């Protein structure tokens, strides 16, 4: 069953000579419980697709369906219970004056959870931070530690769909392995659906079944991870990307 269905999505910013067509005619769908990767050139519109799904792109056309329902206008609270996003930039996505405890506690409270204390501790353990980070502020954390707080925040409402924008690019490889294992476990246990951006093809290979390759706002190729492993890309840009990755 299709969880996320995107048809002919266009997203643009600005006017006149400053107009940017960030996404042009993107079409793909992700089945419930599947994991779909977005890779491609820096600036090609990967983050913009995720932002359009969460309602953070003001100007767009086309169709975005979540679990069969067309998304339009302001997203409602129920949407954010179902869909959560981990942003690319771990620095700006955390409020500088809120401690880790506040960030997680408030998210849990907003989504109507009661056993907040236990859950905060559990979330911090899940992302490999542990209780000693609970009362720290963002400026007291390293880049990778902040990213893990952001991941914990996204996991807090127990969403069904996770939009992950370079979730591990700020993490060292051992923490990356822990987080990827955690995401794989969550996916199998709870049938989560992932849409995941990464510049690292081996991360996409590990996590996803299918992926789209983007260049200059367009999806140039959708391929199975099996084909990726066998280096069987058809579009010249994906071939180039693959060749440069080994």
């Amino acid at each position: 069953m299709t969880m996320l269905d995107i048809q002919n999505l266009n997203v643009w910013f600005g006017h006149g000579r400053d107009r940017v067509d960030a996404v042009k005619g993107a079409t793909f769908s992700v089945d419930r419980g599947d994991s779909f990767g977005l890779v491609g050139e820096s600036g090609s519109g990967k983050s913009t697709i995720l932002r359009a799904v969460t309602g953070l792109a003001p100007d767009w056309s086309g169709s975005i369906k979540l679990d069969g329902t067309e998304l339009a206008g302001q997203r409602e609270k129920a949407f954010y219970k179902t869909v959560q996003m981990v942003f690319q930039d771990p620095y700006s996505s955390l409020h500088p004056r809120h401690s880790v405890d506040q960030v997680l506690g408030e998210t849990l409270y907003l989504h109507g959870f009661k056993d907040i204390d236990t859950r905060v501790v559990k979330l911090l353990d899940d992302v490999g931070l542990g209780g000693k980070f609970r009362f720290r502020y963002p400026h007291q954390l390293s880049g990778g530690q902040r990213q893990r707080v952001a991941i914990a925040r996204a996991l807090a409402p127990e969403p069904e769909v996770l939009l992950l924008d370079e979730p591990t690019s700020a993490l060292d490889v051992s923490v990356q392995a822990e987080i990827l294992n955690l995401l794989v476990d969550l996916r199998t246990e709870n049938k989560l659906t992932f849409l995941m951006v990464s510049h690292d093809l081996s991360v996409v290979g590990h996590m996803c079944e299918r992926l789209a390759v983007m260049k200059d706002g367009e999806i140039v190729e959708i391929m199975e991870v099996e084909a990726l492993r066998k280096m069987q890309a058809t579009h010249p840009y994906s071939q180039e990307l693959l060749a440069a990755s080994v």
Partner: protein
Amino acid sequence: MTLLDVENLWVKFPSRHGVFDAVRGVSFTLGQERLGIVGESGSGKSMTGRAILRLIRPPGIVTADQISLEGEDLMQKSEREMRDVRGQRISMIMQDPKFSLNPVMTIGDQIIEAYRMHNSASKSEAYKKSLDMLNAVSIRDPERVMRAYPHEMSGGMGQRIMIAMMLIPNPQILIADEPTSALDVSVQRQVLSIMDKLVTDRGMGLIFISHDLNLVADFCDRVLIMYAGRIVEVCDADKLHDAQHPYTRGLLNSLPRLDAPCDRLEVLKRDPEWSKTPSVSARI
């Protein structure tokens, strides 16, 4: 030739619960080379870079027997003298690129201002130079980017803009903290070749902080491996894959591989002994 000599560097954060040592007695030298620093999240890589420039915010404290830039001890310099060092002689690309740009000023105005601070050039010359710099880091439509604000940039564009800006003063030393973590491989190569040229042609010293072990093995000359604020191992970059320390081995083994799919990735089993062993010196 030694550009930088760091001896017994400590970074401490006092708090109500006692003192947290983020960097514990690290020593290394930097020549006209590409020196990689790898290590897990929180191991003190960024703090080491920032401490060299004395950019640790209070209540953090930096101590060192010396941090010498061509024989001048930076620890002895006044805040005012340090400002000249930061602007001119040592540049740092921060891990949070967009954070380091001014959010209410266009990219173009910021690059032009930085360029004119270091070069006597007319506005239009500076504009042309700025376009060249953006082109050099593979930014598409640089004219539009010049008129844009930092929040309108993608993650990787922000990184590339910071790299372009930090190279303007023509520094003797560049400290690059995860400078390419958001870049696709082809753009990454372009950017690395720029840094590479500066080292080979102009004799710049480069400290390259990264999580990407394969990249560091490929690109750098020497690598420091940090754990819990200390250097646990130093090796030639091209020998990184034969590294001996169980921690380094653990890092190498936790990489996912396209050619060898697996269900679960290996995770590091930390040994308390690793953080007790004294820091290995990387001074030459």
